[in-house]
């Protein structure tokens, strides 16, 4: 080994200073503000009392929060279970080239271009039984449909709205993954006598793994933070049936001005998302590679 002694150079710290400043102002300082709120009871700007973990304890025991959390998990789970397979199926049925591919891409991505509160408004009107096409049709079919009165209907409508709004994103990502597969793979599979299912299972799905991982993470994070659309559509009702975590948090922070519990909850919320993303990412990194199985057989 060479015996070069590296000179100690502390000037390098100046080079990373801009990054430290950027991260500090964009992430760390705002987060610390929330931490600050979460451990104090701020009665007035000059009168704050340190309360330790009291807000955390109380928020963890909040029954409404538990209900909202389960509702949220169920919703995000349903979103992933529907949108990912549906998006992949959509991508598989999209034309691969020619002008039709461009036309289909534009049509598919239309719903992604609509502002979120407009999506809520569209579905609010769409689902009405008097003037909305969707609600009117269901009513005409003899269904007693009402997203304002029936919790199940409200829930399904929010889910349907999310599927309508975001499946195209999954489809576009999956489509990009499919387009990157060289033609030779399909030719080889055809020579090897692979069935359509085998082509999907052994070529298309493995090659889409990377983009699907991104799709799952994006859809999970985004659906876990859903706020605008159900707020516009149902306002969280009927009752609390469509009150998801973000809306619950807003009610606490702005509606009731409970800054301490709201801050404590924000931190927990943040940690939950972080944890789920971490678990999902690591699980998806492993699944399909079968490193563990291959060692045994």
């Amino acid at each position, binding site marked *: 080994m060479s015996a070069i002694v590296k000179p100690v150079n502390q000037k390098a710290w100046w080079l990373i200073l801009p990054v430290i400043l950027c991260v500090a102002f964009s992430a760390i300082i705002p987060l610390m503000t929330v931490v600050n709120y979460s451990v104090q009871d701020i009665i007035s700007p000059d009168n704050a009392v340190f309360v330790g973990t009291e807000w955390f304890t109380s928020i963890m025991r909040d029954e409404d929060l538990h209900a909202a959390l389960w509702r949220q998990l169920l919703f995000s789970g349903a979103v992933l279970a529907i949108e990912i397979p549906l998006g992949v199926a959509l991508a598989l049925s999209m034309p691969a080239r020619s002008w039709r591919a461009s036309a289909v891409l534009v049509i598919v991505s239309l719903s992604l271009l609509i502002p979120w509160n407009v999506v809520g408004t569209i579905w609010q009107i769409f689902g009405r039984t008097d003037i909305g096409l969707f609600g009117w049709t269901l009513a005409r079919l003899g269904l007693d449909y009402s997203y304002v009165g029936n919790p199940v209907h409200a829930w399904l409508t929010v889910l349907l709205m999310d599927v309508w709004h975001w499946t195209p994103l999954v489809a576009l990502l999956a489509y990009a993954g499919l387009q990157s597969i*060289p033609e*030779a793979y399909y030719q080889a599979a055809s020579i090897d006598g692979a069935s359509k299912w085998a082509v999907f299972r052994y070529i298309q799905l493995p090659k889409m793994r990377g983009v699907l991982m991104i799709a799952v993470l994006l859809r999970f994070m985004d659906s876990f933070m859903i706020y605008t659309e159900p707020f516009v559509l149902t306002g969280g009702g009927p009752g609390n049936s469509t009150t998801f975590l973000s809306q619950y948090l807003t009610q606490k922070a702005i509606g009731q001005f409970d800054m301490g519990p709201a801050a404590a909850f924000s931190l927990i919320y943040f940690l939950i998302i972080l944890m789920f993303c971490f678990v999902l990412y690591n699980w998806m990194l492993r699944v399909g590679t079968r490193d563990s199985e291959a060692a045994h057989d």
Partner: protein
Amino acid sequence: MARIELQLAHSYARTVRSDADYALLPLDIVFEDGGAYALLGPSGCGKTTMLNIISGLVTPSHGAIRFDGVDRTRATPQERNIAQVFQFPVIYDTMTVGENLAFPLRNRKVPADRIRERVGRIAEMLDLSGQLDQRAANLAADAKQKISLGRGLVRPDVSAVLFDEPLTVIDPHLKWELRRKLKQIHHELGLTLIYVTHDQVEAMTFADQVLVMARGRVVQQGTPADLFERPRHTFVGHFIGSPGMNLLPVEVRADGAIWLGGQRLGRPEALALPVGPLTLGIRPEYLRLASGDGADTVPATVTQVRHVGTSQLLGARVGDRDVKVHLPADAEPPAEGAIVRLALVGPHTRYYRNEELVG
């Protein structure tokens, strides 16, 4: 296994106006059962198109392809029972090496013990036995291409195995070894192999029969020796050999003597050449420096002498044409700029009119 007959033409364009629109001009070829064939030609000559037509990935726009006399023009690759290996390795990432090799058999519902036996045999031939349980995705490019080759060879009942420049991604020293292996496998399994390449050494060492292609046409089919000794077309003469055949414009006079410019080259015995302009072709390997200033030789100015391992390559100018001459490695080469005399007419000299062999 099958005898494959091609009587077809192919154009990728929908409307065909001229010969240039054809990827393959009308042709009539037979691949005999159990033969080792090479399709050799420069890029864009139609060799990959022909391969894809044989495998069924491309349907010819005109004509038919028959397997053992049965028309298979519209059959899928599966129905034709063809195996094909592509230029770049295609492997199934999520499978192990063994599963990759077994894939074509599993898809055809071959019994498990038979699969194990075939995979074991092919893996042994390709030196993959120790890696059967490894994941294929993590291997190097040449190992991946060996898997592709293995998948092509694993089915014992295929009509033919087609190779589309399969050794492009392989290191030169492994290329030699793999080519030898393919040849050995051909002897052991007796499969019909068709091998596409633009590398003449690869074609000549691999195949019993080489089809030289140019601009959508098969210009000559023959053994490697045929292509070397009697190129039927000036393209073959020039394309085969390194460097290729020397081609010079000459004239046959009424007495049967051949003239280059104002220089008499001689009168080839036992050849009835048509009177008029011709192209004379002679390989650098058969050109010799003539001693003295004897009759029937042409003067040439030496422009370059290079040592190329087993021989010396001499560049010389005859009139306004460049000529290459192979000299033995131990010969004393003439100095650059010196005048030498070349005997162009000899037993290995060929004559062409309109690029076609006439004698």
